């Protein structure tokens, strides 16, 4: 239902589409137990943006993502999400795959939970894109860490174009091939008017569009 100008035909992301904020955070502070992790964090994710959250271990990257998706509350500040963008797709550290389901069943369950298309064909196509189609009927417990990560990430391809993706260390456990597929998917999603927020220890290697860096160490509580 979002009022998106018909930019589909034009490669340019200028104008209203690029400026539509999917998420904006103002003066955000986050607390974990009695420790204040950071405060006064301002940033915005517009359609077409990739935001790379950086920071030292324990600086609150995962906590911030959990606040952004609504699993945890912010200690201070305000957070506005564009309702028209639908629910964010969140892929945390844990892959959320059950050992005793097949890769396809696990993906279908997660898609169904979040109201994404969950038919076998769409899910199989997403698995194919991430190179785990051949293992779709294998139990998750027989998959390697990297293959599990691929199954979890395949869910991204089921999400609508203008959705917001929140990814916690998405490149973890992926091989070169997997990283390339993910980079492609991220860039394509951003170019199609979606938004991405990701954390990564290493440079995600994205260039088109160039990711905006949000450095948590700069707003760390002293």
């Amino acid at each position: 239902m979002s009022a998106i100008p018909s930019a589909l035909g034009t490669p340019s992301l200028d104008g209203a589409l690029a400026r539509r904020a999917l998420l904006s955070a103002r003066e955000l502070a986050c607390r974990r137990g009695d420790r204040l992790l950071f405060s006064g964090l301002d940033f915005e994710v517009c359609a077409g943006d990739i935001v790379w959250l950086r920071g030292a271990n324990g600086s609150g990257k995962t906590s911030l993502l959990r606040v952004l998706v609504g699993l945890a509350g912010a200690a201070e500040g305000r957070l506005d999400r564009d309702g028209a963008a639908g629910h964010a797709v969140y892929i945390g550290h844990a892959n959320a795959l059950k050992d005793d389901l097949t890769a396809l069943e696990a993906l279908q369950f997660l898609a169904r939970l979040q109201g994404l298309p969950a038919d076998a064909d769409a899910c199989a196509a997403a698995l194919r894109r991430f190179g785990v189609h051949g293992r779709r009927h294998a139990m998750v417990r027989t998959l390697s860490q990297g293959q599990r990560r691929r199954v979890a990430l395949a869910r991204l391809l089921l999400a609508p174009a203008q959705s917001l993706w929140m990814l916690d260390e998405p490149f973890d456990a992926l091989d070169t091939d997997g990283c390339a597929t993910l980079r492609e998917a991220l860039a394509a999603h951003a170019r199609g008017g979606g938004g991405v927020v990701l954390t990564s220890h290493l440079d995600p290697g994205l260039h088109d569009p160039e990711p905006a860096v949000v450095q948590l160490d700069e707003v760390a509580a002293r």
Partner: protein
Amino acid sequence: MSRGVFGAIVARDLRLAARRRVDALLPIGFFAVAASMFPFGVGSEPNLLRQLAPGVVWVCALLASLLSVQQLYGGDFADGSLDQMLVGGTSAWTIAVAKAASHWLVTGVPLVAATPLFGLLFGLDAAAIATLALSLLLGTPILALLGGLGAALTLGLRSAGMLLILVVLPLTVPALILGAGAVVAVESSLSPRAHLSLLGALLIFSALLAPPATAAALRIATE
């Protein structure tokens, strides 16, 4: 959409139970072993066994239900599935009801189905067996709802098992008294209707209050 999520969670839990049959059958196995040990312990005096039967069956069902409910949210919490259930825009209320329903289907229904066998073992007559089964049919969903609440409250804590029993056991005592009392009433040639009506009221009460409390506990646990 929430109905779809409810169905998805129940269907997944049933499928997981079917793939882990030994784990899924453990509560009913515990129930069978515990209930059939009593005659060895207290002797084979038929009148004594008949008097003990309702209490023994109910206590064993209660413990079987509580022992198996501990891991209701534990696995989903540890592997991130619970986070995914909560971020999808589904109310935590729906998740709480779905998880309690799947626990009841996996544990409560077999307990109810096995009741006639244990009624016969303890020498109960047909009317008493029917009442016992009916009381468990009303009572096991209460145990699943309250157990789910306890499991959510103790989620992520160390020594959660002990705490769960301390939290939930007192709440289940009314169900135990009413359930066993219904059978005792039948044995004394009285109508069990009052006991069963109160048990039904208790079920409605738990169904109204346990899910929102469970939902709040899940939100706190994942924060």
